[in-house]
């Protein structure tokens, strides 16, 4: 650890109080060092509901705190307008709430100088239509929403401008005293190993809930009891105002709209350790029941995360929970015989500036400094200049500019300058929260040590709807490009980030959030194989041969007249389509109903069969490994021979439909495809552009500037680090996007490039660009850009002309290879005479004597019944909505078949997101027999003429096994054989 200069004051704790204190002290001209064990705001400052109190909540119980809040609220609005959203607030009395409280509360507010103005409930409902109609009274108060992250970051920037030094990821490990006075501190930086001494005259502990731990280093006791509060973040802003419940303060009283989200909380539970921020699902459900009183549709809104913070309640008398005071205290340890040290603790975010002011007053008095506090007058950051706004307006859409300008405050210029240099960097890295590549880079380049989590806190990237599903990979790539020398592996960077996101999602695994998680697993576990075992060896050059699947030669079957259908297949994913094609092949008259296009178009476009069993990679014949699977696994039910026939069947149909597929030669094993993160992913049947990497491979990796979702640097870095390629080189080479697609209204995806490459001009463009790379190797890896409709032709043409092999990496959605497969399959359906009706959602079934007599579709009050002799249900699992999951109720949607699930929601998932073993939720599904009929636990057949196929089946986890499309094809085929 580098030598640090001596300072006058050391502040411990990078929350609001600590950073505010550092700024205050620095502004008074005193040298100051702030140390924080994690990142800034890693503690309670980022784990509260972001309410800038008007004081009204404390008016009855703690008038002093209330008046203080009222004053500080006004100050913070003035000095940090970009951190405060001036929303105003309502106090809403529910019909059930005790009117006596209101009678006490309103006069108390008046006494504290807090304007609480009655609002007609009708008017209030007009302003906040989502509120319950069961309202007794509503008052308007000057509550606001405050961005805790931003407030601290802007404070930190300002403090540093005044000369303060801030060290994050630095732990205080010892306090050096001499003769009853503090003379210095021992510090340890993360990863540095050695300790470093900094001499100082004064030490302030602003460690929040960690204040007790800090004081103990000096042999002192500070009576702080950590108190955990649970918070829920919702996906959309269902209230414009802060909504407080007008009752004696209790759990679940406060809703705060916060940018794009609403944060709702909280609870008050004494805990032993300040780091104890775990969340139980049951606690979430309890909080929701409370909140439903004010927002009756609360359970319908999607939650993004559940998280907890620990309040530092100052309780020397060991009072806890809601009885403990919310006031702050400054403990001058001189009274206990140690001079030169104070602890500031307790309090609330709203009064952080005041806490800092009072503490700085004490510190300065002890140091003999007489400069007055100026933090109540001076703005945190200057508003961006007219000139800067004009520059930004030339690049960013107005809304995006406003968001970035507010987030980055005084640093906004850097963002603008980066986008001016490379216009494609106006593209959105995080689409949910509107974070551009430029803003990301402006933050990431501040410190080579920043993790994705650090950048997330500074930009909000990854904090919206998809919780990192789409931006994690882009962010990992951007980070690798900004800090190419960084030692951290892309895989680790992404894993760490996604695991952190997972912590907040895990307590909410049902319904919509579970669907998002399934999508995330689809992308990072199945497509990218980020966590799965990698092969230990690859075929040598000359081995790993693949053969093309001969195209089927079927005749065109015109669609037959409607009526008297043999089979209705529900679901147009791979399982449903395979079932329909198989049944049609057997002469059945088939109708295919689909609700939504499923995920086929964003899948890998290859067919995996089985890539991993018991956490071991399968490099050989995947069908031979079926013996290792559990008896209830769908593969065990249909058998290896049928599964192999099924892959052959579907591959020959796809090849016939113009998308030539390849499979391993007899005796060869799984094909391992390179991915966009530089891992290898096991598959069995592959389409154009997908070729196995052999042990001899070394390659150039071609990337396109501005193309989201693929970075040559990231892929090359991942592959270079791969143990299989030790000593091989993968050099990243970039070229520009075609002119007409550069910096347009839409951000560039591989789909856009592919559509262009489908045209002769586009093919030619790609050929020229690849030729100009002058790659020294015989293989070029590239994103999926070889065309949508003409990929095989483009690949052949370019490989011949350039004398090089072209290999597409597996890319995240919206990738192209899945779309190729989907289009080919629909051509095959048409050829087979299957009638396809899209957007038809079968909602329920008519069942008599265990026989399905029809599927009911209702739209706009009109009912239609679709009937056939037999049915194949391939509606998908949780993601496809074949299975509905709510706490305590999980069932198959059309027939309401029960789905067995662990009783405790906590048992639904493993502790870690990437955990090398199936998550329980992923294996849930319909129990079937060998005929793929739904059966009860005792084996009784529930429905005689209905067969189930694909991910609606229980007993396997597509993501850890890498078996999704294989199971779909095998069971779809088997179902098509049984109707």
């Amino acid at each position, binding site marked *: 650890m580098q030598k640090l200069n001596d300072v006058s004051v050391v502040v411990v704790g990078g929350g609001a109080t600590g950073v505010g204190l550092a700024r205050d002290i620095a502004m008074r001209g005193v040298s100051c060092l702030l140390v924080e064990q994690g990142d800034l705001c890693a503690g309670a400052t980022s784990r509260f509901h972001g309410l800038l109190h008007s004081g009204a909540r404390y008016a009855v119980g703690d008038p002093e705190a209330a008046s203080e809040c009222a004053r500080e609220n006004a100050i913070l609005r003035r000095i940090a307008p970009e951190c405060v959203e001036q929303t105003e607030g309502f106090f809403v009395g529910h019909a059930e709430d005790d009117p006596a409280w209101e009678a006490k509360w309103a006069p108390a507010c008046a006494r504290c100088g807090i304007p609480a103005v009655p609002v007609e409930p009708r008017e209030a409902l007009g302003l906040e*239509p*989502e509120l319950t109609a069961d309202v007794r009274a509503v008052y308007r108060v000057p509550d606001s929403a405050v961005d805790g992250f931003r407030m601290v970051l802007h404070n930190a920037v300002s403090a540093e401008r005044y000369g303060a030094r801030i060290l994050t990821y630095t732990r205080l490990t010892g306090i050096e005293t001499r003769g009853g006075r503090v003379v210095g501190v021992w510090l340890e930086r993360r990863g540095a190993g050695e300790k470093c001494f900094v001499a100082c005259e004064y030490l302030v502990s602003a460690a929040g809930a960690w204040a007790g731990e800090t004081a103990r280093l000096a042999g002192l006791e500070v009576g702080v009891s950590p108190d955990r509060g649970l918070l829920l973040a919702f*996906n*959309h*802003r*269902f209230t414009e105002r802060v909504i407080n419940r007008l009752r004696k303060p209790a759990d679940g009283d406060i809703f705060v709209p916060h940018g*794009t989200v609403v944060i709702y909380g909280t609870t008050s539970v004494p805990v032993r350790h300040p780091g104890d921020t775990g969340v139980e699902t049951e606690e979430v459900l309890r909080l929701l029941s409370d909140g439903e009183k004010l927002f009756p549709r609360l359970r319908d*809104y*999607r939650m993004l995360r559940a998280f907890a913070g620990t309040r530092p309640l100052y309780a020397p008398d060991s009072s806890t929970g809601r009885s403990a005071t919310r006031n702050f205290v400054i403990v001058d340890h001189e009274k206990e015989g140690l001079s030169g040290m104070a602890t500031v603790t307790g309090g609330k975010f709203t009064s952080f500036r005041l806490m800092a002011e009072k503490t700085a007053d004490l510190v300065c008095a002890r140091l003999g400094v007489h400069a007055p506090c100026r933090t109540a007058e001076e703005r945190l950051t200057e508003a961006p200049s007219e000139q800067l706004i004009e520059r930004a307006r030339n690049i960013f*859409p*107005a*809304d995006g500019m*406003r968001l970035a300008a507010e987030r980055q405050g005084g640093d906004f210029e850097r963002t603008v300058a980066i986008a001016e240099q490379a216009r494609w960097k106006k593209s959105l890295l995080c*689409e*949910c929260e509107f974070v551009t590549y430029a803003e990301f880079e402006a933050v990431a380049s501040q410190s080579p040590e920043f993790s994705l989590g650090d950048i997330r806190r500074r930009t909000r990237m990854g904090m919206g*709807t*998809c919780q990192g*599903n789409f931006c994690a990979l882009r962010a990992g790539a951007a980070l690798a490009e900004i800090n190419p020398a960084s030692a951290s592996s892309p895989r680790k960077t992404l894993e760490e980030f996604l695991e952190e996101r997972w912590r907040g999602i895990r307590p909410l695994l049902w319904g*919509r959030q579970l*669907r998002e998680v399934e*999508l995330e697993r689809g992308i990072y576990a199945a497509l990218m194989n980020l966590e799965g075992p990698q092969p230990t060896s690859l075929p040598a050059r000359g081995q790993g041969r693949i053969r093309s699947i001969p195209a089927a030669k079927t005749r065109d079957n*015109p*669609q037959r*007249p*409607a*009526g008297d259908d043999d089979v209705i297949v529900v679901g147009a994913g791979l399982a449903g389509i395979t079932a329909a094609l198989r049944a049609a092949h057997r002469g059945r008259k088939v109708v295919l109903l689909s*609700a*939504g*296009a*499923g*995920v086929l*178009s*964003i899948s890998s476009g290859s067919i995996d069969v089985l890539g991993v069993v018991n956490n071991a990679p399968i490099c050989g014949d995947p069908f031979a490994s079926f013996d290792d699977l559990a008896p209830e696994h769908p593969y065990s039910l249909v058998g290896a021979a049928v599964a192999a026939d099924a892959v052959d069947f579907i591959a020959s149909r796809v090849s016939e439909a113009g998308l030539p597929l390849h499979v391993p030669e007899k005796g060869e094993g799984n094909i391992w495809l390179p991915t966009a993160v530089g891992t290898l992913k096991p598959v069995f049947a592959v389409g154009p552009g997908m070729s196995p990497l052999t042990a001899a491979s070394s390659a150039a990796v071609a990337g396109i500037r501005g193309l989201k979702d693929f970075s040559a640097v990231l892929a090359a870095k991942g592959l270079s680090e791969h143990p299989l390629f030790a000593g091989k080189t993968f050099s990243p080479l970039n070229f520009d996007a075609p002119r007409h697609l550069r910096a*347009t*209204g*839409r*951000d*560039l*995806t591989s*789909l*856009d490039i592919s*559509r262009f490459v489908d045209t002769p001009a586009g093919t030619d463009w790609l050929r020229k660009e690849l030729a100009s790379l002058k790659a020294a190797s015989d293989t070029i890896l590239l994103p999926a850009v070889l065309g949508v409709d003409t990929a095989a032709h483009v690949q052949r043409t370019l490989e011949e002309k350039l004398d090089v092999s072209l290999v597409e990496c597996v890319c995240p*959605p*919206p990738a192209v290879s899945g*779309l190729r497969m989907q289009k080919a399959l629909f051509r095959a359906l*048409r050829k087979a005479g299957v*009638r*396809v*009706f*899209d*957007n*038809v959602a079968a909602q329920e079934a008519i069942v008599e004597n265990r026989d399905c007599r029809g599927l009911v579709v209702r*739209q*706009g*009050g*009109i009912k*239609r019944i679709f009937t056939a002799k037999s049915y194949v249900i391939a509606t998908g699992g949780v*993601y*496809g*909505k074949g299975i509905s999951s709510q706490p305590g109720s999980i069932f198959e949607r059309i027939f309401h078949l029960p789905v067995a699930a662990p009783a405790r929601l906590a048992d639904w998932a493993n502790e870690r997101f990437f955990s090398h073993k199936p998550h329980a939720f992923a294996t849930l599904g319909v129990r079937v027999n060998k005929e793929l009929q739904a059966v009860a636990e005792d084996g009784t057949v529930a429905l005689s003429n209905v067969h189930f196929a694909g991910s609606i089946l229980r007993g396997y986890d597509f993501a850890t096994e890498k078996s999704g499309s294989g199971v779909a094809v095998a069971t779809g085929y088997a179902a098509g054989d049984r109707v």
Partner: protein
Amino acid sequence: MSRRFNPDECTACAVCTVHCPVAAATPCFRGPKMTGPAFERLRLFGLHDDDSVEYCSNCKNCDISCPSGVPVSTFNMLARAAYSRDKKIPPRDLLIGFSGDIGKLVRHIPAFLLNFGMKNPLTRLLLDIIGLDKRAPLPAFAPLNQRQALFRNTKHISGDKGRRGAVALFPGCFVSYYEPGVGLDIISLLEKVGYEVIVPGDFVCCGLPLLCAGLYDAARERAEKNRRTALGLHEQGMTIVSPCPSCALMVGQEYEALFPEDAPVSVPVHEAASFVYSLVEEGVFDIAGARPIAERLAYHAPCHLRALGMGRPGLELLSRMPGVRVDDVNAGCCGLSGSYGMKKGKYEIGAQTGSGLFAAIRESGAQLCVSECGSCRTSIEHGTGLPVAHPLTLLARAL
């Protein structure tokens, strides 16, 4: 606008963007996921000056393809309304938006005058200047007598209802002014089955063209009026049927989401071919005796018909007619999407979108194309040169 309608179902998966015909045709459109649910979260936060939503054609392929059931296009239409609220609506959009009112205004003027007035090169040039691309197809007004014939039946003709009951026809602007023959064919079919059919004069434009032009309040007024009328008819026991899939979708399914502040009254509106097909399925209507229309037909499912979520009843109906071989070309949007493809700057997008469909129809070898939607018929005729008919016109002629 109410926040009842929220973006929570969206998982950001991008399937809608993959299936969006406009995104495929131009890089200027951010794509449905972004302008729809992703921006919706920002709009709720008070940000809404994204003009990319202007590119949405409201064809609804995003809704149709979404694996999560998100009504993406409805977000886009509401966003466009919010975006246009304080802006001046250009004359072109007023002309398109109020085309229904214009049609009503000129209902007594002979077709040759109207069509000469609309389609002569000078008018086309003027229209081009205000933003209606001169290359775009414009539908032609139907002969005066047909237009008047359709609205002959505004009241109950006989004192008692038909033996099967009464149907109120919501003809929609396209059929009312450009193709009343389709409405008359439907009336004759339904009368054959034993329905009494009326064409209530109280129905007005469904409001969709207004909504697409950003004229939210005008659309809402129409919706109010239609809802009241529909409810009255419904309470009298009448079935409401529309030959236009877009009108059926708008009145029967979308009013509630678009205008949630108004009393939510859901009155079922049957798309005509689907209604007739349900009669065939129930065995009420026997079409086995239809004279073979010995052509090979190419069938195009209009996007808004698919959006209705009832399958392809018109196709099924045709397939049951003796001697018909009908091909479901299934090649996506025709590109016109109401009036989208007529607009300057959008014409190319529409033409490119439709080119796949036109090629598929030509390749099918059919001499006649069939489609339920008037706008699709105009577009396909323009794009392929083939005649295009409503399926019920074919059925009426064959019986």
